[in-house]
């Protein structure tokens, strides 16, 4: 077991949202297998409502690794994921004013109500619920905690603190998450983006603040400037583990370099192909 055991790999969900990039089905399956060998803690994929390929039984019936299926907070989407047989269901809602009011045009109360409905649906079906707090970095800590407490009360396993536009800086991450993790009733996962080139530094800061879970992608692919790079996470989380314990034992040392290298080759090929997609200028 290496430090990647604490990482949710989202190459197949947030990573594949990289503009122009699409994995072939065989690449998706190969990535699943290799990520398993590399020792990640879980793999996240888009729900069947977003990508019909996720409905294939290989994903929901994976036994060795938790395959977490990502959903919008839409009842129909969650039902599709449950019907496809998934046992780990992620549901995402925003927690910042700009997203709640300007993107969705709803109220904070609506968000809480929707969260309750969605988790209930997942729990009634006997599946495990994971919740995403989109744009938490630009939201208030008070609402994040309110959202987290409700999620915990409803039986959610974990909450994702997303720095959606990658605007946080390490010292801020460290101080905010140190406070949040002491008050949050369920484990927090940090999800950084790389718009300022600070994704890995922010993950390290979250780790120093005591956050156990992290998400990242192979080669840091993702929307815009991408996410935290899996290899970088392995390096910095490993170093931090080593610092905290003089002999971190197999945690830092035993991870499959060969498997990680193979995932990078697949992603590099997909990135090369992605250049062929048309990029059209647009304005709101």
């Amino acid at each position, binding site marked *: 077991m290496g430090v990647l055991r604490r990482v949710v790999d989202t190459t197949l969900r947030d990573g594949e949202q990289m503009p122009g990039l699409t994995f072939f089905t065989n690449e998706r399956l190969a990535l699943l297998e290799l990520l398993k060998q590399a020792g990640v803690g879980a793999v996240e994929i888009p729900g069947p409502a*977003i990508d019909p390929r996720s409905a294939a039984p290989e994903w929901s019936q994976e036994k060795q690794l938790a395959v977490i299926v990502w959903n919008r907070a839409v009842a129909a989407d969650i039902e599709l994921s449950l019907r496809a047989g998934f046992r780990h269901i992620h549901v995402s809602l925003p927690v910042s004013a*700009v997203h709640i009011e300007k993107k969705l045009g709803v109220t904070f109360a609506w968000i809480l109500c929707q969260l309750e409905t969605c988790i209930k649906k997942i729990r009634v079906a006997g599946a495990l619920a994971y919740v995403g707090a989109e744009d938490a970095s630009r939201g208030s800590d008070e609402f994040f905690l309110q959202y987290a407490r409700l999620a915990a009360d409803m039986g959610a396993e974990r909450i994702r603190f997303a720095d959606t536009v990658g605007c946080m800086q390490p010292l801020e991450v460290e101080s905010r998450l140190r406070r949040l993790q002491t008050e949050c009733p369920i484990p927090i996962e940090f999800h950084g983006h790389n718009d300022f080139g600070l994704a890995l530094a922010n993950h390290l800061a979250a780790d120093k603040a005591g956050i156990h879970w992290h998400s990242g992608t192979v080669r840091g692919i993702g929307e815009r400037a991408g996410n935290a790079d899996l290899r970088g996470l392995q390096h910095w989380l490993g170093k931090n583990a080593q610092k905290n314990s003089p002999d971190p034992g197999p945690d830092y040392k035993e991870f499959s370099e060969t498997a990680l290298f193979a995932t990078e080759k697949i992603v590099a090929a997909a990135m090369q192909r992605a250049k062929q997609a048309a990029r059209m200028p647009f304005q709101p």
Partner: protein
Amino acid sequence: MNWTDCLLGKIAAGSNPAQLVSVYRQLIDLGFSCFDVSLPAGRTLVQAGIPADALRFVCADLAQLDECIGQGWRRVRLTLALSRRLQDRELLAKIQQQGLVVSVTIHELSDLESWLRQNRQQAAIDAGRFASLILHDADGNWDYTRGALVAAECQRLLQGIKLEFQGNSTYQMGTAAALGTIHAGAATLICSVGGAFGEIAWEEVWLTLSVLAPHQRKRIDQLVGKCREILAMAGLVPLLHKPLLGDNVFAHESGIHVHGVLRQPEIYEAYAPQDIGQKRLMTIGGSSGRMAVETAAALLGYQCPAETVGLINAQIKKLSAAQGYGLTRRQMQSLFFKYCNQRQEAKYGSVAASC
């Protein structure tokens, strides 16, 4: 904040004089005021017409230092190996007599401590003779706190010394390490555009500092264009998702993101693309949603009847999965032509699409 470039010297050997002068001018436009170069590169650059006063010559041994003195090049940087010989009175005397503007390099605090251990008082006096102390994280292993700690300690040990920082982006921590060091008092960052040659990416630090101090923010409309041009001359192309410079930095594909940006760009943009000369772009592929399909159709001059949008999107996902990338312009046009019967004037008659 002062910026010292370390890219120009590295491309000197393979470029013609006109190219070098062009890169030099672009870097000056971006705000660089000094250029760290090896002696062979320095010779080439001076021959190309770049003023020697703008260059800082990196000397690894006494012979190179003598050559600088001989050529009349006054601004020099001592490498770690040469900096470790600063107890040598003869070397110090030479530096002083020749009126050189010298910067000293250390890799770790221990380098400075061993220098101070020799003769604390004398070392402090010697330090006063130097233009600056360069903290060089040669392996990229300093995290965001390490640079700040080292910088603070250096300032404690050698009060008033001017600090510079040179990092390394091997483990993608360079930007954060630089910010930590700058906050702790480093006044100069040694870096390169695009993080070329494993150095710290100048534009990432510049952007973060601009966002932190918006009142000092200097808009550089052509930042991306200039950086790409400089990198092209070095034979480098930024990755699609390279912060600021990549083609995808303001590109959106997923349904949720396109929908959000169409409502209000700040929902998924931390800063405006026009601030740095970028463009907001959209691709159509496996992650696209209904609104993106409708928007793309409108851009290409079509209006999709509501009942066909879902069908078109399903076709897009299928096509994208089959070819392993998003749609080309031709593929989009063909789909919209098939399913959308009302043709309007294209909003972007000459869509700057890559295919």
